[in-house]
């Protein structure tokens, strides 16, 4: 399958979104709102839930189902307050010893006037720095699109997994084509050279696991995928919890340190 087909699949309107995964993977979910500084960003859903009976903190980018909800959620492109809400909830998770699970699905951090005024760059940078040393296990799953720094700001983790048809890249193929080919219509060609598929990223050691999507994609096999993810998360969290915290943080550091 061509990389571009994965891009289309990752953007398929019927593809399950974070809100679907939250319902399917967790029980007892309580959503928590706001960054305590400015406002609540609906592009990121955060809260506490149980996973196989164990309390966890869940943070997820949500694109929205219908047009009205998409607009409310800014099509899943977070503003700085979304990243600051995430950090607040991650610090809270650390305080109470809860593992953190993040779901990534965004075209990128929002490129708006207000986002710049309120320090989009600073908000992302702060998350990267703080997540690298949070003293609880962090697992990230890229479920759809993983766009640039806006995705990475939720993806500094002990394990990063991707769904088979998800993509994760430095920039959208359109943006990449616009910069390097001076032509955003060459997105298709760009996708083939960018190494943005789960398979490419697995080979580059950027991710640890590819989660299979039986059939034509996650929209056709959601129940099976959700069951699989639940089992994988429960197993991996127990592995991470069994590690001394210093070892876990050392591994997390090395996970990013190796890219030269």
């Amino acid at each position, binding site marked *: 399958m061509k990389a571009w087909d994965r891009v289309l699949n990752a953007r398929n309107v019927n593809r399950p979104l974070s809100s679907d995964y939250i319902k399917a993977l967790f029980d007892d979910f309580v959503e928590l709102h706001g960054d305590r500084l400015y406002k609540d960003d609906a592009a990121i859903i955060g809260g506490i839930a149980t996973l196989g009976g164990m309390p966890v903190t869940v943070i997820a980018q949500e694109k929205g189902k219908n047009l009205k909800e998409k607009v409310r959620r800014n099509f899943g492109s977070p503003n700085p307050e979304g990243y600051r809400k995430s950090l607040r909830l991650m610090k809270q998770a650390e305080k109470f010893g809860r593992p953190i699970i993040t779901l990534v699905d965004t075209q990128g951090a929002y490129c*708006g006037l207000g986002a710049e005024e309120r320090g989009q*760059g600073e908000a992302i940078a702060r998350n990267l720095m703080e997540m690298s040393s949070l003293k609880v296990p962090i697992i990230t799953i890229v479920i759809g699109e993983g766009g640039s*720094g806006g995705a990475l700001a939720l993806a500094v983790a002990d394990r990063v997994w991707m769904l088979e048809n998800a993509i994760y890249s430095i920039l959208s193929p359109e943006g990449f084509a616009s910069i390097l080919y001076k032509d955003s219509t060459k997105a298709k060609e760009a996708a083939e050279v960018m190494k943005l598929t789960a398979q490419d990223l697995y080979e580059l050691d950027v991710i640890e696991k590819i989660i299979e999507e039986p059939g034509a994609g996650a929209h056709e096999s959601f129940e099976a995928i959700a069951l699989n993810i639940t089992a994988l998360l429960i197993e991996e969290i127990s592995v991470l919890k069994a590690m001394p915290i210093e070892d876990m943080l050392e591994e997390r550091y090395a996970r990013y340190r190796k890219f030269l």
Partner: protein
Amino acid sequence: MANIFKKTKYVKMNVVSKQEAPSVPSGLWVKCNNCGEVIYKEDFHSNLKICGSCEKHFRLDSSTRISMVLDEDSFEPMDEDLQTRNVLDFPGYDKKIKGLKESTHLNEGVVTGTGAIDGNKVAFGVMDSRFMMGSMGAVVGEKITRLIEKATEESLPLIIFTASGGARMQEGIISLMQLAKTSAALSRFNDAGGLYITVLTDPTSGGVTASFAMLGDIILAEPGTFIGFAGPRVIMQTIKQELPEGFQRAEFLKEHGFVDKIVARAEIKETLSQLLMLHGF
């Protein structure tokens, strides 16, 4: 008369001027592209590339910056032999890097090492916009990270002058990983109690803004510096509005609480020296 209703075609100005060096007619004079003033070339250079009329700070290369900030002959470079890799096998990338190495005499978009400021040893990094606009690929990320790690090991104050278009697109996801790598190294430096000062110079954007540029204990900026996450063109395309005057300039960021202090080029060494003194160095 037939043309009376014809819409006047205005010349559209770029928000960020592409030509950042003042135009240099061969000879003794240069014209400032900001205010139009004609300046005696020797004065322009002895004035640290600042226009004497409008005070615009033009971009400086890394070696001028080093001689401006560090004590004479104190700089000892690190990691000058790291080689850029073409991870995406991107056509023309190797050739471009080779050409830039020859024309700039740099190995990559950042120069790192140790040096002294008024006798105090510091870990020092300066990005060079002449090398692919100081964009951060694996080598830039590695040099910055090794500098941070050295500062951590030797308890040195860390000073980085940023100047970057952001992540290096030609290195794809590996370039993105440098944001996490440098930020993680800074987390350890921070936990060890190290002092980190960033000086944002024109331009500081994208993945560099979203990582080590904005993580300083103290963030200084030169007057008029472009500082942002997204570029103005992308923002205008997104919001379909014109951007306000002075948007994403150092003064704007200071007003919004993201820069501690704006420091004119001629006063940077003195300011850094004073900040080091205030931290017990």
